[in-house]
């Protein structure tokens, strides 16, 4: 058993290393392929699934920041998603804003709530924190359900206009919605990539590995834990804003616990703490229910079975292998020098 797993691991790791070496060429090639999908003349329902996959990939990239990198498991991300969707929908339908500023406002307001939800992380951790996030999502749902004057309560918001950019309607038919979400996905990916490979990202990962040790090393863990929630909320809120305009009707039932769990499943299935995993996870979990439609009533039985089997044989997530390539030190850090420094100090100790 172990051997098979090792073989699989090495197989994936080999692929990853070769991709890693040519990652820029690879990403550009992949992006080109994805960008030309609409030109194939596929039925628009397939494009719609493509758009849903990208929305969920953005949400997963968002959740991955606190959960995958910082180690703060959140099962309430539907809350941010909902705040983003409602903020944008209300600003556009009631206050007459145009879509792009409404989207920015949605991300900002979700970010504020991300800050609020980040606060309990100072006191609670692990499963207790997860329950806090769950409670948060329920509070948001109840607020949306009961604040009739603002959210129209259980009746939902209908006739939300299509996404518009500079006066052009972005629909599925003119491929606008597809390209818009693709651009958003690329921007989010680049943003997350830059964050993760910066000082902030290293602080996140150190908190996940050992919070106490990183605190002792001078990482201001409180700040970074809250920051991880804020960044995550901003990304989710933005995805929510697009979702509202794309679906054109939202009600409190669009953002239930199931949504939170779906996002978390994408993160776990794809591979926590990786970006590649988010894309694959979203593709699998969003497209499977559609692809399995021929099974009729049994499709979710099969879907569940697939999840169980995947988790049994790839508990670290489909693409969640450990990188086998040598660690790249940030610019300006010379590993040899550090190593020499260690040797010097140890020899000094000996002398004393």
């Amino acid at each position, binding site marked *: *058993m172990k051997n098979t797993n090792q073989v699989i691991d090495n197989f994936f790791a080999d692929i990853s290393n070769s991709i890693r070496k040519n990652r820029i060429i690879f990403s550009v090639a992949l992006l080109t392929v994805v960008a030309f999908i609409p030109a194939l003349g596929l*039925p*628009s*329902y397939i494009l*719609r*699934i493509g758009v*849903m996959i990208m929305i969920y990939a953005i949400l997963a990239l968002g959740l991955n920041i606190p959960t995958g990198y910082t180690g703060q498991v959140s099962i309430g991300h539907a809350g941010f998603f909902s705040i983003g969707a409602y903020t944008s929908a209300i600003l556009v339908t009631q206050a007459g804003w145009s879509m792009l500023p409404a989207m920015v406002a949605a991300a900002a307001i979700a970010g504020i709530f991300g800050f609020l939800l980040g606060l309990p992380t100072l006191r609670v951790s692990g499963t207790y924190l997860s329950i806090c996030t769950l409670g948060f999502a329920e509070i948001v749902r109840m607020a949306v*359900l*009961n604040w*009739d004057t603002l959210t129209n*309560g*259980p*009746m*939902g918001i*209908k*006739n939300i206009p299509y996404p518009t950019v500079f006066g052009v309607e972005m629909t*599925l038919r003119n491929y606008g919605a597809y390209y818009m979400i693709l651009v958003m996905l690329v921007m989010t990916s680049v943003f997350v990539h830059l964050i993760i490979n910066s000082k902030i990202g290293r602080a996140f990962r150190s908190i996940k590995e050992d919070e106490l040790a990183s605190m002792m090393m001078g990482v201001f863990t409180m700040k970074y834990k809250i920051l991880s929630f804020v960044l995550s909320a901003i990304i989710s809120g933005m995805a929510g804003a697009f979702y509202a305009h794309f*679906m*054109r*009707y*939202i*009600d409190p*039932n*669009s953002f239930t616990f*199931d949504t939170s769990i779906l996002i978390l499943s994408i993160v776990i299935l794809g591979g926590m703490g990786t970006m590649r995993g988010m894309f694959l996870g979203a593709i699998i979990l969003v497209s499977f*229910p*559609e692809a399995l*439609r*021929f*099974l*009729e*009533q*049994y*499709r*979710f039985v*099969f879907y569940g*079975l697939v999840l169980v*089997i995947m988790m049994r044989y790839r508990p670290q997530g489909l693409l969640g292998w450990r990188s086998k390539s040598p660690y790249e030190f940030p610019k300006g850090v010379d590993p040899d020098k550090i190593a020499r420094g260690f040797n010097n100090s140890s020899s000094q100790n000996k002398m004393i």
Partner: protein
Amino acid sequence: MFSQKGIMRKICLLIVVLMALSMFASCAPAEKEEKKVVKIAVAAPMTGDHAEYGISYFESAKLMAAKWNEKGGAGGYTIEVVQYDDKSSGEEAATIAERLVEDMDVVGVIGSYTSGTIMAATPTYQENGLCVISASASHPDYSKQGNYIFRNNTVISVEGATSVECAEENLMSKKIGILYIKTDWGAATNKIMQELIAKTSMELAKVEETIDGSDDYSTPIANFENAGCDTILVVGMHNTFVPFARQYREINPDIQFVAFANLYNQQVIDLGGEAVEGTYFPVAYFNESDDPKVIEYRDAFIKAVGKSPSSLAAQAYDAAGIYCEAIAAVGNDRAAIRDYIAGISYEGVGGMIQFDEVGDAQKTFMKIVIRDGKFVLVD
């Protein structure tokens, strides 16, 4: 080690067999195609909390299609009913809509169960000109979304007028209270009921709201008692009504209840027992009716599913019947079918169906009372 491998192999084998079987199953109907086929799609929850309704719609639509196909089809077309499971999720419903509008064999859609689900899909149906008839949407704005969007469900104001009549004339109520669930249907109904009650001689003493699915009603009951209500109008599904009625009758055995057509469900009597005795509500479809169409449908449904149809299933049956008649008249042409349906007068199991300019079916209601553990028609 060995046994683990064995299990793994068995699982793999099982999956392969399952996949092969399901492919086979999905291919099978395609082989016998000879006649021209048109499809009626039932896009409704076939899995999840509301699966019961989706499946009953699908079965009802199939019964109607079988009836027409036996006669040689509608206008030279064989009618096929296809199911699409949306598991009561707007996202899935919207994806299904996108798929159905592109399948030119599909001439009409029946679905979904909740208004929120179908309203995520109606923009797609409307923009691409494919008819939808909902057998259960109750959101007041549902049918206002376009001229391809029809509702073969009770319109709350008409149904509510009958409920108010039950309270005023049959129960001689003086002071009435409303308990409503906080859903799109509950909130809309509550608003309309308040307006209707204001027009009568009854006094609206107290309005209480509750979350769908809660099971402790002591606070609303105490408030109704303090306000001196003699009758409570319950705007809720049976999962709200039954526990509420049980708890209330324990405190005040003389309290009277008036409710809505969704209570026409054997479970209400099975679960409620004594506590729901004497409850009045309106229905558009009644299983015990002596109309031969109803008897035919009821018996066929019991044979297929094993229990009596609900009024919503009957509405789906009529929706399928409306499509069949439209196909017989104008063939496979979505726009012509829409025009035909807009002007139809269809004699269904749920009475005469005509759509008004918004697309809502106008129905007449009968009054039902629960007496000695049975649903009884009030004269």
